[in-house]
């Protein structure tokens, strides 16, 4: 019998079952709490704890949003949080960039200053919150926006500095030197060459600082009361002696997510872009 030539089967595209399962599970893991939170925020109060759960309310309602934003002053908290977090983020990025550049390029303070900066975060916040509270009350910063902005700037600066320090360290010096020879002052070389190149690092540090400020609870709780209170502190009102206000808590949580997600989307492009590509030999 003549040997039969092996028939070459067209290669079938295999379905990556494992990958789909893994991604599906991960998606469920991430989205389920969001769904639950959103669902709770539009459920009438009677549907919170039913068995079986109400998967989607037949009569969605916005009453919890109204209550959370106005009755519980969630909107004021949101505005305060935006003012304080954005200001602290900008200041932290500004000072962090300047300080990190100085550490990276001039070796300011020798080899120990940079680590000393980071070491400030080793201190548990509870260790300083009481003295800070007393000082703030003494100098009139208690329950003010500016007071919390200062506290948050100081609080986020070590991480901003450290992130930017690493970034500047990794950037070749020669481009700034070329700018100096080309006719720039030290400041212009920093501003027109180093800063644009460090943009991805600055954005990353800023996002980090913003998230830290946006979610900060402890300092806000101690250092503010009726005026400069931030969004996270509003949440504690939802667990009171009338029981838990699930709907209002969920509604405010949804609202508080919006800026973080918007920031993430805006910053993503910068976070990913590698600007230094092609600068030096490739």
């Amino acid at each position, binding site marked *: 019998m003549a040997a039969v030539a092996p028939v070459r089967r067209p290669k079938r595209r295999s379905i990556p079952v494992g990958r789909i399962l893994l991604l599906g599970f991960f998606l469920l893991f991430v989205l389920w709490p969001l769904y639950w939170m959103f669902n709770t925020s539009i459920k009438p109060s009677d549907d919170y704890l039913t068995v079986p759960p109400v998967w989607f309310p037949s009569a969605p309602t916005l009453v919890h949003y109204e209550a959370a934003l106005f009755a519980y002053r969630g909107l004021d908290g949101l505005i305060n949080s935006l003012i304080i977090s954005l200001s602290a983020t900008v200041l932290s990025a500004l000072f962090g960039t300047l300080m990190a550049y100085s550490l990276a390029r001039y070796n300011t303070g020798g080899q120990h200053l940079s680590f000393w900066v980071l070491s400030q975060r080793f201190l548990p916040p509870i260790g300083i919150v009481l003295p800070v509270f007393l000082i703030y009350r003494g100098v009139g910063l208690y329950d003010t926006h500016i007071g919390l902005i200062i506290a948050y700037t100081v609080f986020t600066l070590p991480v901003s500095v450290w992130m930017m320090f690493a970034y500047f360290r990794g950037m*070749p010096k*020669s*481009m700034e*030197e*070329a*700018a*100096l*020879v*080309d*006719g*720039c*002052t030290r400041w*212009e070389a920093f501003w*027109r*060459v180093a800063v*644009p*190149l460090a943009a991805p690092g600055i954005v990353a540090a800023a996002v980090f600082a913003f998230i830290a400020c946006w979610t900060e609870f402890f300092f806000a709780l101690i250092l503010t009361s009726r005026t400069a209170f931030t969004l996270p502190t509003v949440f504690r009102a939802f667990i009171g002696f009338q029981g838990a206000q699930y709907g209002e808590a969920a509604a405010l949580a949804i609202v508080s997510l919006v800026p973080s997600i918007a920031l993430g989307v805006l910053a993503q492009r910068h976070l990913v872009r590698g*600007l*230094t*590509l*092609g*600068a*030096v*030999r*490739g």
Partner: protein
Amino acid sequence: MAEVRITGLHKRYGAFHAVRGIDLDIRDGEFTVLVGPSGCGKSTLLRTIAGLEESSEGTIEIGGEVVNDFRPRDRDVAMVFQDYALYPHMSVAKNIGFGLKARKMPKPEVEARVAEAARMLGITPLLGRFPRQLSGGQRQRVAIGRAIVRNPRIFLFDEPLSNLDAQLRDEMRGEIKRLHQDIATTMIYVTHDQIEAMTLADRIVLMRDGLIEQQGAPLDLFERPASTFVAGFLGSPRMSFLPGTLKLDGSAAAIRLADALLPVAPGRTLNGATDGQPVLLGLRPEHLTRAHAAAPAQGTFRYDATIDLLQPTGSRSYATFRLAGSPVMAELQAHDVSRPGERLPIDINMNRASIFDAKTERAI
């Protein structure tokens, strides 16, 4: 256009003494190459001239003006960096025009000068691109464009070709030489590559351990090296060094290498030489040729060599043999020799040979 005068220059980094007292005069329009092994201080010297490093001691004058306390931007120099140092966030046109803009030149003039520089370097079609979209050679051209557009008093080059592949390096070397011929501005060029130094320089400054070992026209250094270091650094393949002793007999001098006695060319001055002094005889491959004439010419020593290593390059063959126990390389015509083990008469041109003191390794 300007001359450069460096007097008593030192540079220390903490305990490390990178430049240890340099005196150097560079004439207006001269192409000077600072060459030496890595760590010899040549880049530090260049960066000090640019103002990117502060000198620890000594003065730097550009165009008759002491510039020690000038910022880099006020020295009116342009520099091409080893890694090109293009600004990655700017287009090629912006890169080239950056220095002019930084000096507040009106925009139409910036554009005109950028266009002219781009035309000179043949990179006009690239003006709208970004550095990451360019090849190595194109980036190098942009970096040179950024330097020439400013029309500076001095050009500084810090190993500009070392990141390019061999073929492109040859090409760019020619272009830099042509650029110097065209614009005739003072250029100071750092390299560790002796071929670049020999081909580009009006004057070579050969450095070693933070000091100038020898300076002069390329052929002067090549033909009359002041030390074994200079002799060994310039020329490829390297000069061969043979240990021997000097024989002085009245006006005639010779070098004894084991059983061979090689007469020193008559009329050659031997500074401070003494009879029996241990010396090193330096022979370049091109000082040795296959003997064709019946008798050796004046100043030539004939030796019956047994070739033990042959390296053909096509047009030439490098043949290694032993002379008084030491390996010597001869540059022969390809048809002079066919295989290792061959015996052939070699003429050694003692007129061009170098003689060094064996202890100090300085030329005598």
